[in-house]
């Protein structure tokens, strides 16, 4: 079998096919207790201006001091992206005026970022893999927030977010469709969560994306790009790209040219609109922040962090395939969310038993996931524990219950929000009947009562299933289906 390949996704225009080229700049809030350059809390929520230090408010004479945990988190993330870690990096000031930016400049990294080139592999629907280049990762401060709805004539400023550490992760323009872009952000978020360097919560703004989109004729050089700012859900990223690519194609096909500009995505209308043109772009007057020395650390510092890096999704997936024998599709599904992967492994290993990985995976990806979806939770957040999953799988494996009964056991556990599967089966008499005497009796009774059906089945053997169903009904579903099947066939002489 040939490995699946990345299929070119072209957009049909009025004058021919177009290819879309996408690069992403993802802003990921660093998971840390304190801000990048101050001791103030990074906790989400709280009353406006609850988490503001003198530094965050840019009081006169205040100085930034680097939070080393944020540095460690950036290095961990760089390692997770298999990227170059720069032992020396420089913080620069990006100067512009806005009320949510108390200093009048954002401390960022411009020329010398803490992390250089890396790579992130995405899995496409058809099973193909694409290696997306990472251009760089740098640390920078978040801005505050303006509140426009508190007063009829004034805007208020909330500086709780001011100074919170962000990692800006910039990809190369390696993505070729909205699906790939969505897969990229999904995978990046997964890696960040595995690493524990960003919670990836897009609703809280912990992860935002600026999407750079351009179009070109297949095989030609890069077109002029537009940057869509601050898109805050994966679904919107897809919509924004689809809209923007078609807009650009329309402009070019109508004889126009694309102006390099910054655009905003309006989720309500599903369209992008111009925010500012290149001419209106700020001159940020970047220069090295003289309040901060260059950020320097040594290789042993990096090695120490690398030694304690958790297993990441790609490695975990490979292990699930190679060591546990799971199909690639199942492995990919399970590792996408770290908690689900952990849940799977916990269920697999309860009591140190060696369970059938595929059986455990099927339950988690099937009935447990369906239940989790129905209550709007992640698998790991439901009332069903890995121990219960293991219990069900064991009962089926031991032939104590059938797969069908197992679904009933699960339903009881979800209803009662707990319970040991073995105890439930015991207490409710759900054990499957393997006593052939009892099954024989039921089979004989049904054959005796339905001579016409017997004749039909003997003429057309597939109709024997009707007898099996009747026996199962008569035994309350507890009869071992295989045993029933065998007996019915024997009695009918099939």
């Amino acid at each position: 079998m040939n490995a699946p390949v990345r299929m070119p996704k072209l957009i049909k225009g009025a004058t021919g096919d177009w290819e879309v080229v996408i690069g992403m700049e993802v802003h990921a809030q660093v998971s840390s207790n304190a801000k990048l350059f101050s001791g103030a809390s990074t906790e989400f929520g709280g009353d406006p201006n609850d988490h503001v230090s003198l530094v965050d408010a840019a009081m006169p004479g205040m100085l930034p001091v680097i939070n080393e945990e944020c540095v460690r988190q950036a290095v961990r993330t760089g390692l997770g992206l298999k990227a170059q870690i720069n032992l020396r990096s420089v913080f620069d000031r990006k100067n512009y005026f806005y009320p949510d930016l108390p200093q009048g400049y954002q401390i960022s990294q411009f020329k010398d970022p803490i992390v250089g080139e890396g790579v992130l592999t995405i899995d496409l629907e058809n099973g193909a893999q694409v290696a997306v280049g990472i251009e760089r990762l740098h640390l920078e401060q978040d801005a505050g927030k303006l509140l426009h709805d508190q007063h009829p004539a004034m805007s208020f400023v909330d500086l709780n977010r001011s100074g919170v550490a962000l990692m800006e992760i910039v990809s190369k323009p390696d993505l070729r469709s909205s699906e790939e872009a969505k897969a990229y952000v999904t995978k990046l978020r997964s890696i960040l969560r595995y690493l524990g360097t960003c919670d990836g919560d897009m609703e809280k703004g912990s992860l935002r994306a600026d999407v750079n989109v351009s179009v070109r004729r297949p095989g030609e050089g890069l077109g002029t790009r537009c940057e869509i700012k601050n898109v805050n859900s994966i679904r919107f990223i897809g919509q924004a790209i689809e809209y923007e690519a078609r807009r650009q194609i329309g402009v070019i096909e109508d004889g126009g040219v694309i102006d390099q500009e910054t655009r905003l995505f309006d989720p309500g209308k599903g369209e992008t609109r111009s925010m500012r043109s290149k001419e209106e772009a700020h001159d940020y007057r970047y220069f090295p922040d003289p309040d901060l020395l260059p950020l320097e650390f040594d290789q042993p510092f990096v090695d120490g962090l690398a030694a304690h890096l958790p297993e990441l999704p790609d490695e975990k997936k490979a292990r699930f395939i190679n060591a546990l024998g799971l199909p690639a599709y199942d492995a990919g599904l399970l590792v996408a969310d770290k908690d689900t992967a952990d849940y799977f492994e916990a269920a697999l290993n309860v009591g140190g038993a060696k369970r059938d990985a595929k059986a455990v995976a099927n339950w988690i990806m099937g009935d447990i996931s369906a239940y989790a979806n129905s209550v709007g939770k992640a698998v790991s957040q439901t009332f069903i524990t890995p121990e219960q999953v293991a219990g069900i799988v064991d009962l089926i494996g031991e032939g104590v219950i059938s797969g069908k009964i197992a679904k009933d056991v699960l339903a009881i556990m979800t209803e009662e929000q707990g319970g040991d599967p073995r105890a439930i089966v015991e207490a409710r008499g759900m054990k499957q009947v393997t006593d052939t005497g009892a099954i024989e009796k039921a089979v004989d009774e049904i054959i005796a009562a339905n001579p016409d059906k017997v004749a039909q089945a003997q003429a057309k053997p597939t109709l024997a299933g009707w007898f099996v169903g009747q026996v199962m009904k008569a035994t309350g579903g507890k009869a071992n289906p295989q045993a029933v099947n065998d007996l019915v066939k024997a009695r009918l002489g099939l």
Partner: protein
Amino acid sequence: MSDLTDLTLAEARDGLRAKQFSAVELTSAHVQAVEQARALNAYVLETPEKALAMAAASDVRIAAGEAGPLEGLPLGVKDLFCTEGVRTTACSRILGEFIPGYESTVTARLWADGAVMLGKLSNDEFAMGSSNETSCFGPVTSPWRRDGSDAAIVPGGSSGGSSAAVAAKLCLAATATDTGGSIRQPAAYTGTVGVKPTYGRCSRWGIIAYASSLDQAGPIARTVQDAAIMLKSMAGLDLKDTTSFDALVPDFEAAVKRGVKGLTIGIPKEYRAPGMSAEIDALWERGAQWLRDAGANVVEVSLPHTQYALAAYYIIAPAEASSNLARYDGVRYGARVEGRDIASMYENTRAAGFGREVKRRIMTGTYVLSAGYYDAYYVRAQKVRALIKRDFDAAFANGVDAILTPTTPSAAFGLGEKIEADPVEMYLSDIFTVTVNLAGLPGISVPAGLDGQGLPLGLQLIGKPFDEETLFAAGQVIEQAAGRFAPAASWWR
């Protein structure tokens, strides 16, 4: 008791220890002197109640045998240092009546050592100026006058309030800051001693920033010994300032008496600036001779990139300032002038809040950092800066222990004489001092004589990084040889 203000800081300290007078008596004498000297306009805020309360607390500690190194000694504080609960403005309208809720590290260390605060001293707005004429509280007048003239003379700048107050005995010593010469030039103009320590020696935390990579706090005092005592209390590592240095703070006072026997003193040939007066040249030679007489070996050194220093300084300092002063936007504190929208509020606030010289430097700095000019100006200036540093490194590597130069090319000028002229005229008064800031080195200005019109002149000594001790030792030799200088009469009372 008015003669208590005649004491040096060291004498006052020893007198308090010997219980010859109380801290309250010492402070009262200074409070009275401050009140009588309002004509000089050195203090922009007097804090007599606070001073007397601090002095009373000092007397309790002295009685209990718990006196700190500066116990009961009344000092003035440049208005660039944030003082908790005491208005701090950097002498700019844009800060309005700003009262910090925090104390700068340097002043906190002074108070922890027992010092008493008399009030806040004027400076050029945001420390931008060389004459203290850009303060929003109006110019400071030097206690010095030319012989036979009552024309007002500038006290230098930007620490002109500090230099005038120390020279007029309105405090035993004062804090100051130096970005391109703002401690040493006013010290030279007022016959006082000014020390710009090595960059990183004193914490910048809580000091209103002008140009972060150049700003450094230091003392202005009436003697080398007093300056040494002050610096000991002001200096030290501060984890709140990443650029502060983890260097041992030595007993600077002990170094004062070391002498210069066996030391090598360099004379940079490039400092013979064109148009330098014969008077300054003679003073310089006299200083070299005093050091020779005390046993030092005086040699010529070359600092070939000196000629580019002023240009580099006036790119780097305004560049940093343009960014440092962006926070004064009327949004969170200080003055605000409303506008029809946020942009016009910014414009109105900053137009009304900043003075002319500050605006000039913000515009210069914005220009040199802007796209297309950054490499030609800022990057080039940083290269010059590296070369200047290398010049000094080479001189010190060749065995030079300290470098002797004039502090300024001339004595103090008259009030209003230069402020209306070409700003570069004013900038030239820092020509001998800016290199030291660009190289991050320590420098001291020591009074060395009077010019033909009776105005004080200073000599500057430049040291190796974190070797302020040699500067105190050599400075003391000059002070002993030259004698001390004070204004002839207390005309301002």
